[in-house]
């Protein structure tokens, strides 16, 4: 189970969807949520909060976003020793399994096919193993 104490960074370009997702994460019991609207924004948030007590502990990111997409963000995160161990959940509307494989091989903790409902997120987070 993904610990409820984790500070989650939600990366989503559609503000309305972000509101929905934040709500669902809240309903699941996660009350420390940071948001970013694309990969670049997310990266800045990660770096900015890294030095503080509000360090990001999990990333939930959309795949398709302007400027820097979720996959680029994933690669960047995994290449950085500070963030490479963070659980990374990829939200994807892609049902193309090749793309999903690509994300898995690049180290995502799990993928979530949209719509990411309460039940889907609950299920995916439940399967998270704290190492």
């Amino acid at each position, binding site marked *: 189970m993904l610990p409820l104490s984790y500070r989650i960074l939600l990366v989503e370009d559609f503000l*309305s969807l972000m*509101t929905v997702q934040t709500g669902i994460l809240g309903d699941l019991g996660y009350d420390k949520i940071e948001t970013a609207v694309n990969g670049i924004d997310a990266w800045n948030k990660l770096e900015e909060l890294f030095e503080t007590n509000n360090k990001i502990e999990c990333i939930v990111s959309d795949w398709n976003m302007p400027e820097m997409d979720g996959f680029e963000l994933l690669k960047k995160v995994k290449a950085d020793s500070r963030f490479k161990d963070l659980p990374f959940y990829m939200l994807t509307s892609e049902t193309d*399994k090749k793309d999903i494989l690509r994300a898995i091989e690049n180290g995502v903790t799990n993928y979530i096919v949209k719509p990411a409902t309460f039940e889907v997120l609950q299920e995916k987070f439940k399967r998270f193993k704290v190492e």
Partner: protein
Amino acid sequence: MLSILNKSIKNKLIFSTLFIVVIATVLVAIGIYFTVLTDLQKSMGQRLQHIASTGSLLIEGKTHHDIYKQYVKQVPKEEIEKSKSFLDVQKTLRNIKNINNLEQDIYTVVLPKWLKKDKKMLFMAMSNHKPYIGNGLERSEIASQVLNTKTAQYSEIYEDSEGQWISALAPIFTVTKKGKKRVVALLEVDYDVTEEVHAVQMNLLKKSLLWSTVGILFSLFIIYFVSNALSSPIIELTGHTRKAIDGNWAEDLKIQRADEIGILADSMRSMVSEIVISRNQLEDYAHNLEQKVKERTKELNDTNTKLTCILDSLGQGLFLINSDYNIDSLYAKVTDSFLAKPLNAMQIKDFYIEEFDIDRTFKVLFNELIPFEDGISLLPTNIRKKNDDMFLDISYKPIVTNDGIDKILVIITDKTYEVLSEKKLKQKEIETNRLLSIFGSQRELKSFIEDAKERVLDAKELIKKEVIDLSLIKGHAHTIKGGASWFYEEPIIQMTTKIEDLCLSLQANKDSMPQDINIDENLDNYFSTLENNFEDFIKFTSSTLGYDVEGDDIITLKEKDLFSIVKSFGQKREDELFNILLCEDAGELLKTLNNPLKDISKRLNKDLNEITIKSDGSRIYRKLYSEFFDVIVHYVRNIAVHGIEDEDIRLKRNKDKYCGVVFSVKKVNDRLFFSFKDDGNGIDPLVISKKCEELGVDMSGKTDHEIIQGIFTKKVSTSDNKNEWSGLGVGMDVIKSTVDSLGGSVEIFSNFEKGTELIVEMPYLKYKDVNNVTT
């Protein structure tokens, strides 16, 4: 012997002490022996020395020298022996022997210089009766000393072939003309001490034996006490240790001493108690382990039994995928009954129909790169079934060992019966829904039939033309299909689909179409069939509704009646019926906001693009949300008044000339989300911040997003120029309080100069909520 020595410390002590006593006795005896021997040698030697020195004075040197001179002149020995000087000397020697009661003969020797080299002495005369002259004796050490010192000397005891001896020698002098003494010969007296030495030895042996016996007895006595004092605690300790080794831990070690043995006993005691604790723990552990093994064995047996049961069951196919991503040769033979060909003739890629990246996908599964349950969704769902009528369910279970996933169990279950039953159920549901649609949408039904009839007629006219407008015909078919779908009218849906497909293929193959195919006839036939389908549909609906749907006016059912229909269908389907009969697409309700927005924009000379309405088709009962729609219209007005910039400003900001407005609605998990988005002016956080502070609200440390939420505060308005269309007294605060009262929330997102989005989230209200409202 060695084994005894090895066995006991006590024995070792005894034997080593005895050994020491014996050695000591022997050493003492040897010491005494040599002392006695020295005494004997001294007393006997002094006596002999005295005899020799007094005897030598009796022999006249000149006479003796005369014998020597004859010998040197090589006078025959017989003559020398008869000479007066020889006889005189011999007589004197005999006298000395007799006076002193000597048993052995005494004799004289000379040591001529010329004989020095071969270190021999020369015999001159002897006291015996047989004369003797000539070479013979080895020159002894003592003879040399006598020559050097010119005084008598005696020897130590020495041994030769005849026995043990002590000898004494004394010089025989002549006086030279000058009156100087000169040694001409030596007188030697020998004494056989063999018997005396033997007597000393015997005496000593007797005494030594006595002493050692006494010594041994005494030491045994001492050893007994010492070894008892020393070894008994050691023996006890040893015994205790041996018992401990044999498993008797309970016995207490009683040794209490302050010495090394006491320390050893203490260590032994603490060691034993530690061992006892460890042994008990080990016993507990062993016992638990045994229990665990038993339990685990039982579990395994249970699992095996279960597996056997599963394998034996006829309904399920089972096989394993190995970690090399191949199908295991061992599988339930029933599996073959589901598949196009026997499993043992298949590789994993033949099992699935879809092509997929086997290595990468199974690597994800076996290495659990993501949880197994999620990983299996990467596998294709279509498999090579034996026949198409079969509906198979495939599930995957990991076989896990300590090293991770070893194999993947694939379970194939025949769900044909279940699926068919479900299909039948669905069919019944469709029938019900169809009736409900007809009942609930009579106005739409009427207009659909009118519209469709017109379109069919138009299409038939189009077909007759020289050049057939296929896309127009296809458009008609598509629109009719859409309407028919609403009423679940399968024959019309199928026919219109056929027409669409035909049009599509005709369009695509315009050039290669064979001339002999009569397009008009084909299409005409289709539309004739469609007309017939419509006749049937009209008959059916008219008889269902009880009036002629083509001619008569609609008999509208009142809401009250609709509610009673909902009730009559029972609790199970009340939500569904309520949804169909009384709810409408929330998007349709959003459309009612178009007019006020367009109206005000027009009056303000602000241009709008077509307003976009997005809906996920969520149906809501208007009356439940009427308060919300009453107030949201003010926000929509605000968009026109404050949100949309003048055309020149928009162009300056690199924006489209016309403002884009999107209203959308979506249902997520029993929550309804409305979004009102524009790409207009946006909200200036500075203005809101200033106004809020004027009202006494502390805005320090807030983000822009937090600041603009201040717009929901009472008395905050974004425009200073109030006009007749806005600022009517209904502000954002009213929208917020209305939504709050409905159990929802509002949030506004805005980028200044770029646009604004208002998001309203409310609970999705159902039939029971109507009841709550009405009661």
